[in-house]
């Protein structure tokens, strides 16, 4: 950072964005420089995504300016951003399954459609950056790693000067992540591009970036050269208070700390749970969706008081496993038994009635009804509890709701507040409160902490532990290895809809899990 340094590739000055009373970005300053990988670290809801959406033109700021290479610009939409040399690799939702690779790569451009040239271009970029891919493949049939490769090619094809990556590793195996970072370092940054790496994982930022900006509650709280900082100081800046890295390791994505803890534990004898009764058993369950086998002779057992972690790269049947246990998927074969009794798959409410509580992967999809009130959401599965002669008793509903809100510390304007008005963490608590309210035998938690801030993550983690201590069998489905390593007593790894490996807690390391997740069975 000499005095003669050229103007930064991007300079964001005093950016502010409000949504009603919520300030998503508050007077944010940020410089991205050519040839540098710039980490933007923060909890969920810290404002880093909003900031990047402003830079890419998806969100308009209320105040502030953006300078690119010294010139001020207003970025109305993603098209403008692309024309100005800003490209983004999105976490989700930016590839169209029904199109081929080259069609996807061309999407959002405005030149004439030329199939031959497009394919040559894709091959060129693949060569230059070391990202091999078949341009005629259907994107819907690619693995997560390859899909992200397509994303990256799509972004690089327009030869952007600034590349933004939003939580790029959430869908990758550790090995694939490592490869991505190498590409970023050797291919992208070395071509003189400015790279912004948005992440909430400490380890990743420490490992892959040159410089790091930490955001909290919409503000930039700190900026460091990465090599001169430590996990502890980053964690403190990110959360805003002293945190025990050990206790919050999973929430912060501090993998190495977590592993050290596990090693220490390994010396102690494992508490054996083998004599506990099996509460949930999946036996050779096979299921299809759109004629594709999504669960392939899947067998998993969960004992009372045990937390079984289901690890795996996203898109390997975890969502379908969650759906199966939410009565949303019918099977072609195999059985699901809860405390010894077989439950019919796909029959409305059958899993819930058998005693399976679920915190779904996407609570908006199958966990709550946003357009109903908090109180109504708390009794969704059994309104009869607050009814007289099949008619709801408003008084009893309120009473019940207030009691549950108190017990689970749900912050809302009142029981009649619309579910939509609650923060993500509080919505999650509503789901949890309802699911635990009638004595379940099994708790299925699918990506239970996704999109939550550290405080909310700690709360969820505690609740899950408590549930297991009370004797529930817990099935924790997560793509976050840290979360699984932190909570699970036993870990099964899913790949292509089947279990390809099982590890006891003390046997598990990121490396071994990573190999399994990549589809390599280890004996």
């Amino acid at each position, binding site marked *: 950072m000499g005095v003669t340094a050229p103007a930064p590739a991007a300079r964001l000055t005093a950016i502010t964005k409000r949504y009603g009373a919520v300030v998503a970005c508050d007077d944010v300053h940020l410089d991205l420089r050519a040839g540098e990988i710039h980490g933007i670290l923060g909890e969920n809801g810290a404002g880093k995504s909003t900031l990047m959406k402003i830079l890419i033109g*998806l969100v308009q700021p209320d105040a502030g300016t953006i300078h690119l290479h010294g010139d001020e610009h207003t970025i109305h939409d993603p098209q403008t951003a692309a024309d100005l040399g800003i490209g983004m690799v999105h976490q*989700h939702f930016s590839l169209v*399954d*029904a199109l081929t690779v080259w069609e996807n790569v061309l999407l959002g451009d405005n030149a004439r459609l030329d199939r031959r040239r497009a394919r040559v271009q894709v091959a060129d970029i693949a060569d230059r950056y070391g990202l091999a891919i078949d341009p005629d493949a259907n994107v819907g049939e690619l693995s997560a790693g390859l899909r992200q490769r397509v994303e990256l090619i799509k972004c690089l094809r327009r030869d952007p000067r600034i590349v933004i990556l939003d939580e790029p590793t959430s869908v990758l195996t550790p090995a694939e992540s490592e490869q991505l970072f190498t590409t970023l370092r050797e291919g992208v940054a070395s071509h003189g591009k400015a790279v912004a790496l948005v992440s909430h994982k400490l380890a990743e930022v420490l490992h892959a970036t040159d410089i790091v900006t930490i955001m909290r509650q919409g503000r930039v709280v700190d900026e460091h050269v990465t090599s001169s900082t430590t996990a502890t100081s980053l964690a403190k800046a990110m959360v805003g208070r002293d945190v025990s890295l050990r206790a919050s390791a999973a929430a912060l994505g501090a993998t190495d700390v977590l592993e050290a803890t596990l090693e220490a534990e390994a010396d102690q004898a494992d508490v054996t749970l083998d004599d506990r009764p099996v509460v949930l058993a999946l036996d050779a369950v096979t299921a299809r969706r759109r004629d594709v086998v999504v669960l392939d002779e899947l067998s998993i057992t969960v004992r009372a008081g045990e937390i079984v972690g289901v690890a795996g790269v996203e898109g390997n049947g975890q969502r379908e496993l969650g759906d199966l246990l939410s009565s949303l998927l019918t099977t072609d074969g195999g059985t699901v038994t809860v405390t010894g009794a077989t439950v019919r798959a796909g029959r409305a409410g059958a899993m819930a009635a058998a005693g399976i509580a679920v915190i779904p992967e996407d609570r908006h999809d199958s966990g709550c009804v946003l357009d109903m009130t908090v109180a109504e959401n708390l009794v969704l599965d059994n309104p009869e509890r607050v009814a007289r002669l099949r008619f709801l008793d408003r008084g009893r509903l309120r009473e019940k709701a207030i009691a549950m809100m108190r017990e689970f510390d749900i912050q809302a304007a009142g029981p009649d507040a619309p579910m939509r008005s609650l923060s993500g963490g509080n919505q999650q608590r509503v789901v949890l409160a309802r699911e635990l309210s009638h004595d379940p035998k099994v708790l299925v938690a699918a990506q239970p902490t996704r999109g939550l801030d550290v405080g909310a993550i700690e709360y969820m983690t505690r609740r899950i532990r408590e549930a297991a201590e009370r004797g529930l069998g817990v099935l924790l489905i997560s793509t976050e290895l840290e979360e699984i390593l932190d909570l699970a007593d036993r870990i099964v790894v899913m790949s292509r809809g089947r279990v390809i490996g099982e590890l006891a807690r003390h046997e598990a390391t990121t490396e071994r899990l990573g190999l399994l997740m990549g589809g390599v069975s280890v004996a």
Partner: protein
Amino acid sequence: MIAVVANALSDVLASEAMYNSMIRFAIILAFAAVGEWVAERAGTLNISIESMLIAGAYTAAVAFDRTDNIAFALLCGTVAGFVVSLLQANLSHRLSTDQFVVGLTLNLFVLGLALFLDSQWKAVTSVAKPTRVPLLADIPLVGEALFGQPWPMYLIVPVVPLAWWLLFRTRWGLELRSVGDNPQAADVSGIPVNRRRRQAIGFAGICAGLGGGVLVLGQISISGYETGHVGLKGIIAIAAVIFGGWTLRGTLAGCLVFGYFFALQQSLPVLGHRINSQLAAALPYVVALTVTAVFAARTRQPRALAQPFVRGLT
């Protein structure tokens, strides 16, 4: 009984008039169906395609009545269809009103309007003359049907490849398809989702408006606009798209199938078979119902079909 049916069928297969009227019905359906196909590939489902047909038919009839110029009248019909599609597009994909509510209301509105205006300005068109392609039209059985139609009917010939080319060979089409399959992805890629959908509906309006015009100006047996001519052909066109599994070829095949049953209903009495007129009239619709039931579940529809897009919603 079986003998009667077999007898009727063989009569039908040997009837030139039958093929002729089947092709005519199929062409009318195809205008609407090709337009609706494009719109559905962009993720919209427009029951208002019906009102676009009606608007095109009535406007073209009035325009022809006043000017005696077929080309001008067809242009007027096309514009009318386009205007209705603008209403549909802006209400459902700018103001985000439910697209079926808008479609239904538009259907009733345009039907009523055409009925009312028709009572004030009666449009009478002279009967169209067939354009015979020499030699080819003399091919037995199907020659007349394929090469002896009034010229507006042949407008379908450029429309079909045009629609295909637009959808599969232009950037606009690529963007339409992306919008119909994964609007969120299209949005973050910088594609204006709802604008593309409005444009797709606009294209459907142009096609259906033109189809309405051809309906009144290209038929040999009809003169002028009459309520009931359209008679849910727009909805049958939607059924043809479903039948075709959202492919262009399949959609056209669907038009032929439904055209056949419309023709059957017309031809049987002509051929001297006694058939109840009400049951015959219901036949194409019953077939549409049956056929969609067979094909809807099997084929792959655009994933975002009939789902509104609002940015920020996943």
